[in-house]
């Protein structure tokens, strides 16, 4: 295959990626967009097998190893992607991103070993960039995975003199980077990789759990840039275009996510340096709460004119989306005005609630975005909060010190009655107490969301 044809196919794959991102930005075309992206990636992968790089010949050297490695990758990636539960999606995305960063770093290292002293300064600089950022992306993603999977604490990990250690690590990373560029050699490069991995860990540890998706998105953009840098070293227009696209769109997306959570990007990444660890269970004192029975809840709902359902992470855990839909349908049949109030960061990934409720075939019109539903709480008789906590916590507006301060919330506190379905008095993801649970107009229905909802549905039927 001629170089021109090879490059043109690469460009076509780049165009497919542009169309993919474009498609993914609109609900109607999102799925098709993803398929176009997959098509472009397949095309790009197939075509390398038919083009002999300078100094090489067809079929590719090490073909068996290459195909074998791809089969292994498929055998790991596909089942993981197929079987993951919706609640664990963010972790998986984080991991996939991390391995991508790792792959880019490895490619850069191999190419560096291969080029040896023939490498131009520009190539070495791009290699150093790829190794640093790829390794940071890899180890950072692993930490976010551990946090989201709750294999480690979801709260900011602050250690004494933390910010000095981080700064020192960063300085050594950069120092070793300069060393690699000036002296060349395998050892400095491996030291660089090791230090970068360490920096990735240190960089993500102090990030509060609630900000983790922002960090994933940022690391995703970083990985894109490493791919673009590899494209320079390997002289591939496709990698340059694809990597840059991901880098740029990922940056915008990160900013948008941060906005949706009401956080400044800067604060997310560096604010944790100064944050003090929060006390998990608040003051710990026992305060009275009003808890009710499924019948109490059913009665309240039966006489309401307008009900807003606020789903959260607990709904996803309990897989209660179908039951909640049943409840909503019953209320609608009774002539009650029902809407779902969707917080952009309810659950553990942006749009999590939309996915879950769409899975349960909840009509799109019943889903109201935060800005839409907030002004209506004044006319709402009952707000029923199902497995959500942080996204309705007024502390986000009232207590400047707390980790979610500044995040816009669903203002259920303006509704006439509030019902909470949760299992205990434990706080949500951000680990801070929710005063609303103690509010006189709040009623708590303890138990797993799905079980509680089933009981409420039966009680409502009986009325």
């Amino acid at each position, binding site marked *: 295959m001629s170089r021109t044809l090879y490059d043109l196919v690469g460009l076509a794959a780049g165009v497919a*990626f542009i169309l*993919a*991102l474009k498609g*993914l*930005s*609109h*609900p109607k075309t*999102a*799925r098709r967009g*993803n398929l176009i992206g997959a098509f*472009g*990636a397949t095309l*790009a*992968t197939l075509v390398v097998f038919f083009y002999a*790089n300078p100094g090489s010949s067809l079929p*590719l050297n*090490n073909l068996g*190893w*290459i195909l074998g*490695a*791809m089969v292994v*990758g498929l055998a790991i*990636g*596909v089942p993981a992607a197929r079987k993951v539960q919706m609640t664990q*999606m963010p972790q*998986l*995305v984080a991991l996939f991103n991390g*391995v991508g960063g790792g*792959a880019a770093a*490895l*490619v850069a*290292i*191999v190419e560096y*070993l*291969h080029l040896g002293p023939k490498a131009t300064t520009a190539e070495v600089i791009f290699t150093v960039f790829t190794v640093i950022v790829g390794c940071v992306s890899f180890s950072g993603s692993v930490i976010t995975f551990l946090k989201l999977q709750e294999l480690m604490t979801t709260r900011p990990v602050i250690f004494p003199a933390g910010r000095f250690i981080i700064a020192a690590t960063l300085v050594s990373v950069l120092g070793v980077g300069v060393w690699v560029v000036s002296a060349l050699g395998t050892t400095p490069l491996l030291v660089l990789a090791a230090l970068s991995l360490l920096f990735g860990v240190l960089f993500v540890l102090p990030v509060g759990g609630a900000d983790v998706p922002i960090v*994933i998105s940022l690391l*995703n953009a970083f*990985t*894109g840039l490493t*791919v*673009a840098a*590899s494209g320079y070293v390997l002289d*591939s227009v*496709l*990698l*340059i*275009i694809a990597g840059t*696209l*991901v880098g*740029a*769109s990922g940056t915008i*997306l990160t900013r948008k996510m941060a906005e949706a959570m009401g956080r400044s990007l800067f604060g997310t990444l560096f604010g944790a340096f100064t944050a003090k660890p929060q006390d998990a269970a608040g003051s710990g004192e026992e305060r009275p709460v009003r808890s009710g029975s499924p019948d109490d809840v059913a009665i309240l709902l039966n006489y309401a004119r307008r009900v807003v359902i606020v789903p959260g992470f607990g709904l996803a855990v309990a897989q209660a989306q179908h039951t909640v839909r049943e409840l909503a349908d019953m209320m609608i049949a009774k002539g009650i005005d029902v809407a779902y109030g969707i917080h952009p960061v309810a659950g553990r*990934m*942006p*749009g999590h609630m*939309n*996915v*879950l409720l769409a899975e349960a*075939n909840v*009509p799109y019109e019943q889903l109201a975005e935060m800005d839409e539903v907030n002004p209506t709480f004044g006319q709402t008789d009952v707000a029923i909060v199902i497995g959500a906590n942080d996204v309705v916590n007024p502390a986000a507006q009232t207590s400047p010190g707390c980790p979610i301060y500044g995040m816009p919330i669903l203002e259920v506190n303006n509704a006439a009655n509030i019902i909470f379905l949760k299992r205990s008095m434990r706080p949500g993801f951000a680990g801070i107490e929710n005063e609303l649970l103690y509010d006189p107009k709040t009623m708590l229905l303890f138990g797993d969301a799905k079980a509680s909802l089933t009981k409420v549905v039966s009680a409502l039927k009986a009325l």
Partner: protein
Amino acid sequence: MEPMAIVSIFVLAVFVGFEVVSKVSSTLHTPLMSGANAIHGVILVGAIIVADHSSTNLELGLAVAAIVLATINMVGGFVVTDRMLEMFKGNKK
């Protein structure tokens, strides 16, 4: 390729990247992130190229590892994105 060409391509691709996603609604943040994530799995192409011209065992070993990781990234990414988006399907008809 000339540095100037590469810089131009980079700058233009940055604009394309900015523009195409600038109107995305928060509902699609996760699928978009996941789809973009899958796209950078195309580093697989780079991994295959370096595996082709690996001359030592160390190089080949690292390249093979890169292929495994990149394949996971690419294929897993597209599959998981499709799964997410499949759930929206019901309402979009």
